[in-house]
């Protein structure tokens, strides 16, 4: 049940305004770069549904993201399909089916088993594409064309236009945020939170816990697939690294950094993390060392992430106001 603290909502609104007007003056490189951040925010948000609400810590979430990228790559390069009306449902469908299959096996377990099994099953998908000669193997491959959106001869949307694409990514992010907020306020969402808190009790109340978990897993996987579709359209490049466990760990880190179980946290997390990586990378060749230290500091000192800090600030502010 997402209770967005007021300070977070204010920040979110401010951020949304900033994002909405950014293309008016930002240069094209940063338009592209922020589109990437928004795609990762969407990706991380989908994982937050699992980690932060359903209590399912998946270390294989990149499999669905990367699978969607490869579905787009395959349809465009091998079948010559470029219509977004085909590519989008195919990408989402593939991600959903994969999530159903991986989820079906994984949700029989809990806790650390779940972590390990999602990791191992996702690696299976990774090796599948890794070993495909026709799909570029470890090199990956360029996607020959961006998706097209045509109605007859009329071009409805131009994926090549960076500004248009930027707003598409922003729109998807906002839509996913709204959708997840609605879902989490529904009985289904409350049920997930209940399962996370006390699975046995939920069973005794009559909830088919496995079914709820599986549905959550499929929703999250499908949204990750949406992020993958957008990334394929943005970067037009497919590589096994998109589905590797480093990517899964990376997106998990974004969720924690932002604050899990908040939905808006992963958005903040994606901005902070990606901007920071970008910055560190220019400071030193040893930037991964800095990232490692940073990750550990966050884990040790900020378990509730940025959202936790905001909550505390908000509480302090309210208390201060009350005292005055």
């Amino acid at each position, binding site marked *: 049940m997402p209770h967005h603290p007021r300070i977070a909502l204010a920040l979110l609104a401010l951020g949304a305004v900033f994002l909405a007007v950014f293309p008016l003056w930002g240069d094209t490189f940063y338009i592209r770069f922020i589109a990437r951040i928004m795609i990762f925010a969407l990706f991380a948000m989908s994982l937050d549904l699992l980690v932060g609400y359903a209590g399912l810590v998946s270390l294989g979430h990149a499999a669905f993201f990367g699978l969607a990228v490869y579905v787009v790559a395959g349809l465009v390069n091998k079948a010559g399909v470029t219509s977004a009306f085909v590519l989008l449902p195919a990408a989402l469908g593939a991600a959903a089916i994969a999530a159903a299959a991986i989820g079906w096996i994984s949700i029989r377990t809990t806790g650390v088993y779940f972590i390990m099994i999602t990791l191992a099953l996702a690696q299976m998908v990774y090796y599948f594409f890794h070993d495909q000669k026709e799909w570029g193997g470890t090199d990956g491959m360029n996607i020959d064309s961006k998706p097209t959106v045509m109605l007859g001869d009329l071009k409805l949307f131009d994926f090549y236009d960076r500004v248009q694409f930027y707003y598409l990514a922003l729109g998807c992010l906002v839509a996913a945020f709204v959708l997840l907020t609605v879902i989490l306020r529904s*009985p289904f*969402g*409350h049920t997930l939170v209940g399962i996370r808190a006390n699975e046995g009790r*939920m069973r*005794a*109340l009559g909830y*088919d816990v496995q079914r709820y978990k599986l549905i959550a897993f499929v929703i999250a996987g499908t949204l990750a697939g949406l992020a993958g579709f957008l990334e394929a359209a943005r970067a037009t490049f497919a590589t096994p690294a998109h589905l590797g466990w480093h990517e899964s760990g990376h997106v998990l880190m974004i969720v924690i950094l932002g604050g899990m179980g908040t939905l808006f946290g992963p958005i903040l997390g994606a901005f902070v993390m990606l901007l920071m990586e970008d910055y560190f990378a220019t400071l030193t060749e040893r930037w991964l060392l800095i990232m490692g230290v940073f990750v550990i500091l966050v884990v040790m000192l900020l378990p509730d992430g940025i959202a936790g800090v905001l909550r505390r600030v908000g509480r302090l502010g309210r208390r201060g106001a009350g005292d005055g």
Partner: protein
Amino acid sequence: MAEPAARETVLETRKLGRLFGGLAAVQDVSLTVERGRVHAIVGPNGAGKTTLINLLSGDLKPSAGTVGYEGRDITGWPAHRVARLGIGRSYQKTNIFRDFTAFENCRLAAQARLPRLSLLRPAAGHRDVTEQAAHALELCGLAERRDTRAASMSYGEQRQLELAMMLATGPQLLLLDEPLAGMGPEESARVLDLLRRLAAGHTMVMIEHDMDAVFSIADEITVMVNGSVLASGTPAEIRANKAVQDAYLGEEAPE
């Protein structure tokens, strides 16, 4: 208490057994629970009472024997299917959602009976669910504590909430694991009163250590020792039973 004209079996176990690593926690238990009756299960600690409840509720799968409910064989059914048949249970150790309010706890329980998955409508918008939850709270005397976080309620209130959650699912058969455990005399009396009222509309299987309470409310008593049934009968029969007296005397004091 209105006795039904014809006695009708609601729940029946045959030769029910459960092993834990070769050790029999429950053995050869055959019980018959009739509609509208309060069936108490008593016995010393380690007699297998809670295990028996867990077998009935589906939290554990039996190693032997069968469980029948309303003429249906439900042996080995998972807990959620058992619950959906209308069998509610409460726990000996308070088992509530501590971060939720009393009302949210009950709403979560009540919406377990929604016929279909509901993903898009807000939980607060399901009127029948919220009514059912509010009703359960009221029944358990918690109406005023509706918006209190469960974690900040008193122990007695938490026990009452535990019952309210169970009731919110609208069950016909109640499996109660020591509903009075750890309560002061005043709270105990209040809950006992609640149980009496519930007995009017429900069939109940109840584990309880408080013998006064048991004898005052039960229609039927089963005594368990070492995982097996020692005796079964009306309170008067049990009181008179020699074997029960032999085995049970001196162990009567709760925990």
